């Protein structure tokens, strides 16, 4: 049944499919599967052409005519645009010498936000200490040893400089001075909270903040 000769349709006339009125191809029969002699759909062909044109324009535009930036330039443009925006951001007033713990609700809330974003990984959710030391006791490692007060300025220097040999990085590029002041003020409020799993004291005991 399948070996009807190729180009001769039965009686020289094309056989027509009753349901669609399309022409069958003679000799195209494989295990009962037949094939119709339809042309490529025009919309399909145009779609194909359009994608080919797209491809050519794309290659020319990026690589020959250089109409559009490639990734390194794109990145530099993005940075430049961001720099413009950032410059517009107001610079907050900050004076190191007169720095003291803040008490305003909003500052402490901002401080907690920074804490939860950054410090929590090493110092624990409740300041109980993990890889880094415990913030809820009065023992501090980086204080002035001649005096019984631990000052927020001493804590500030730790955040600015980092303690890289112990694994704490410097945050001077990530946090603004005010943000550091806020997070330190928040940490000070954790004093005496006695969280579970508190880490053993490290450093020297101080009496008060000052």
């Amino acid at each position, binding site marked *: 049944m*399948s070996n009807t000769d190729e180009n001769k349709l039965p009686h020289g006339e094309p056989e027509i499919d009753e349901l669609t009125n399309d022409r069958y191809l003679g000799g195209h029969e494989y*295990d009962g599967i037949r094939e119709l002699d339809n042309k*490529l759909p025009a919309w399909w062909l145009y779609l194909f052409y359009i994608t080919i044109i797209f*491809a050519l324009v794309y290659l020319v535009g990026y690589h020959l005519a250089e109409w559009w930036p490639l990734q390194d330039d794109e990145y530099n443009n993005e940075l430049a645009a961001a720099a413009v925006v950032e410059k517009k951001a107001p610079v907050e007033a900050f004076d190191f010498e007169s720095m003291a713990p803040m008490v305003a609700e909003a500052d402490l809330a901002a401080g907690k936000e920074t804490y939860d974003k950054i410090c929590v990984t090493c110092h624990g959710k409740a300041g109980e200490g993990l890889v880094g030391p415990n913030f809820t006791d009065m023992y501090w490692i980086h204080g002035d040893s001649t005096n019984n007060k631990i000052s927020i300025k001493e804590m500030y220097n730790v955040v600015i400089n980092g303690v890289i040999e112990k694994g704490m990085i410097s945050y001077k590029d990530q946090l603004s001075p005010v943000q550091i002041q806020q997070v330190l003020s928040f940490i000070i409020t954790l004093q005496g909270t006695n969280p579970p799993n508190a880490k053993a004291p490290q450093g020297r005991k101080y009496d008060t903040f000052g």
Partner: protein
Amino acid sequence: MELQKFYYDNKIVKMFAYATLFWGIVGMLVGVLVAIQLVYPSFNFNFAFTTFGRVRPVHTNAIIFAFVGNGIFTGYYYSIQRLLKTSMASKWMTYTHFWGWQSIIVLAAVTLLAGYTTGKEYAELEWPIDILIAIIWVIFGWNMMWTMLKRRVKHIYVAIWFYIATFVTVAVLHIGNSIEIPWSFLKSYPVYAGVQDALVQWWYGHNAVAFFLTTPYLGLMYYFMPKAANRPVYSYKLSIVHFWALIFLYIWAGPHHLLYQSVPNWAQSLGTVFSIMLIAPSWGGMINGLLTLRGAWDKVREDPVLKFFVVAVTAYGMSTFEGPMLSLKNINAISHFTNWTVGHVHIGALGWNGFLTFGMVYWLFPRMFSTKLYSVKLANLHFWMGTLAMLFYSIPLYWAGWTEASMFKQFNDAGELVYPNFLQVVEQIMPMYMMRIFGGTLYFLGAILMVYNIAKTVKAGSFVAMEAAEAPALVKEGSMKEGEGFHRFLERKPIRFMILAIIAILIGGLVEVVPTYLIKSNIPTISSVKPYTPLELQGRDIYIKEGCYNCHSQMIRPFRSETERYGEYSKAGEYVYDHPFQWGSKRTGPDLWREGVKTSRNYKPDAWHYNHFMDPQKMNATSIMPKYSWLADYEIDINSTPAKIRVMQTLGVPYPEGYDKIANDDLKAQAEKIAAGLKEQGINVESNKQVIALIAYIQRLGTDITNSTETADNK
């Protein structure tokens, strides 16, 4: 003409069909497990071989090579005998193919769970299995071509064109991507490194999709769709054009997996434009499938087989439109590394491959067992469950992908990331991961229903192992005849057809791969980039073994949102000693490429890493990373160090002459230093444990080009 009698071998079809069902169930069940692990990390069970990083490759390999692979061979052996009116040329080849393929699958499952992996997606299997695959594949193809020479039908049908393309291309891809040098019985390093490895890997990876998940299934579609609908194929001319266009164009598109990454711009652009040009050729297949149903749509309403086929072909059309869209740079900037890709994958996988297989199985079994399907109702139920499952699987993942991208990229007015903490995003997409579990489970249950239905059908029927048929012998005709047309001529010359198909796929492959052999000159060398120390090398192998690349990338793209989050973007020259590359394709966790840079916001001390590996949830309660506590128990395999160094030297990594003999001294010294540092932090772990090597590797990541700043900081 005298009729010859012969038999169609249904037994091989039945065996492959059973294997398809079995591995399909296994693969989907494992899929559900990994989906659960992403929500409930306790389902990693705290055993090395049940952690996500090892189980996910089992899912992908089981589904692709076992479920889809056996599905291909089921339909292939059924159709090719009938399309060529002959039995298979070689019985032993046929059955060796079956048993060889099943043993590859079993070996794959065991070795992957045991942690023997190359660390390259979809090509994870190690060198002895690679060799076995090559042998079995050649047996399959040889048998196919030989059978064609013994055929009783003058021309080869379009389904067979696709089988031929599958055979030759998969062989080329598999061999090309698996060139590796062993350093032990089960482990090797690939000859390619960094950028070159990435280009070869995705040349392979994309075309594994194209020539394993797509072309053979188009072949199946061309046979089973017209058979099941009892309608003619819409257009022979379209078959020709879309077949050649598809196989020629597909092979070029691999670099769309590497957009905005450290590969040359020209390669990326080729990936994009060839993907766009694939829309029409792909849709040619969809059109020829759907329009074949013209005049039979009333049947579609009743016949579950046709329903499965219609959804399969539609899903094919959808993913071959979505794929090219994902290849556009600005869309890929959003989608890459997110769950969007996973959504795309599963529209293709669940819809196209899954549904076509299901339809084919429902069609085949009643015929081979000369009976009726046990329950059309259950098959319909399966259809609706599967369709719903796809929606529950994919919609949440698109939503998740979109959420991830927008959260990762959002800046506030002060120019800071709004969500600097990776976990903030992970927490946000948990509900979507949950819905995916539901979708996946539904899909799995549907498949169970099918197995039940088939088992009942088998019980009720009687199997015809050898189906008798007859046809006249083929009268050989030589050269091209007047008015025959070149393609029609080619269709009766299968060997020539195969050679042309090889040429078509080699062109794109060569254009893309040859320059990568010369790529050393394409990559700006960076003098401060040095080979890994022996301890770091061992740590890197642990990273690969545990499959960390399944969740973490090592590729920072040049976007402000990424450099702000992770640090300086990746440079091609940084990866020249990475055999294999470990850039990853999905960020379930954060990028790690600048993890070791002490000025980066992600830097963490050794002690943090130690605690984190032991129990990530202790460090971050909402983390979904598995625990790796055994790393503190297992020792580093230092006996392997000399062999590893020697293989690296062969591959051109500039360790000094004779370094293999003294490498372990350096290894021990570095390990002791790390262990001593941990001790100071109150952590007691011996210096010969695996966790030490892994920490050394992590702390090395991305540091080479920032060395100068680091020394400044260390003062």
